[in-house]
Structures are given as structure tokens and as C-alpha cells.
């Protein structure tokens, strides 16, 4: 699954630690999501989208290999 968390974070001028604090996870979790090492839960995806005032679809996108 591709994501634009890093881009959204840059647009909103958040550090990984700040985003982590807002969605109540560790900074390492945000790092793992951004680097594609971890496919997050729906709840966390919704929380991240809410923080960036956008939709989950706008941030997360399925790849061929996910099917």
C-alpha cells in the first residue's frame, strides 16, 4: 500500500513525533508507515486522515501486489 503521509506531514509542517502524538502512537510507527514497512489499521488510517483534514483515499492507495 502506497501512502502520502510524508507529503501531508510536510504540507502541514508536522514532524513525525508531532503526528505520532496527535494520533497517539509512537514516532517509530509513523516512520514504519511512511517507509512502507507497516500496513496500518483502518482506525489509525482514519485518525491520520482526520488530522490532515482529508480522506483515507487521498492518503492511502492500493498497489498491484496488495491484490
Amino acid at each position, binding site marked *: 500500500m502506497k501512502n502520502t503521509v*510524508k507529503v501531508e506531514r510536510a504540507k502541514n509542517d508536522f*514532524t*513525525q*513525533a508531532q503526528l*505520532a502524538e496527535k494520533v*497517539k*502512537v*509512537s*514516532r*517509530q*510507527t509513523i*516512520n*514504519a*508507515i*511512511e*517507509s512502507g514497512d*507497516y500496513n*496500518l*489499521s483502518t482506525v*489509525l488510517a482514519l485518525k491520520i486522515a482526520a488530522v490532515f483534514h482529508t480522506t483515507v483515499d487521498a492518503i492511502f492507495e492500493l498497489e498491484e501486489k496488495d491484490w
Partner: protein
Amino acid sequence: MKNLLPHAFKKIGWFILIPALFVGVGWLLLDADDNNKLFNWPVFALVSDPLFEENWQFAHFIQNNVLDELIALWILAGCVLVAFSREAVEDEYIMKVRLDSLLWATYFNCGALAFCILFVYDMAFYWVMIINLFALLLFFIVRFNWYLLKMKRGGES
């Protein structure tokens, strides 16, 4: 996950586990059990002899040197506290790493045990059985904490 101990217990666990491991290894190397009369206590034993031998007894008191039991419980307490205390932020990714590490430790322990079954014999295998009492939890602790350390070093990009 609700079934984890509070985060503060992890530090207490390390204070218990590290000296316990040194004492445990010392006990194995020195075979101190028989030399120490201080720990020769009467204990309640459900079973103490091989099952169905002549004069086999269930649930009775015996005289036993409890030093090895005390050391084993000491190590076990340390292992459980370190292995199953929450991290400061115990989120879904940490939980995934925790469960992955537990699975990895189980596979690794089975592999190590199979290796020892094939290549270790006689009294040396007694050591393998003693160490294997704690090996699964120790493998888990090493793998999980190594992974956490690696994650913490993964800097912001």
C-alpha cells in the same frame, strides 16, 4: 492489548532478570545444589518419584534442596516482567512486532531444541533441558528488544 503488565514493571524486571541469570549460570557451572545445606527444606510434592514405580506416592512431604527451585522462579519472574510489560507507547505496530517476535522465538527455540536433540547426549542434555525452561522467553526478549532498538534508531527522513 489489555493482558500486558504496566510499563513500570519492565525496569523492575531487568533488575530481577540480569542478576538472576548470573546466579543461574553460576549454579549450573558450580553445581552448588548439593553443597548447600542452608536450602535443605521440607517441601510439599505432588509427585517426586517416576510415575507408577514401586512405593509411588502422590501428594506428600519430602526433604529437598530448594536452591534450584528458588533460582528458577527468580529467573522466571524476571523473564515474565521483562517480556510482558507494556512499552511506554504500546500501539498497534509495537503489538505486531511483539507477536512477530513471539512467533520467531518459538520457531527458533524449536530449531535449537531439534539441533540439541540430534547432537547433545547424556548429562549434557540435562543442561539443555534446564536452559530450555527459559529459552523461549529469553529468545523472545532478545529479539523483541533488539527490534525496538532498531526501530528507535530509524531516524526521521
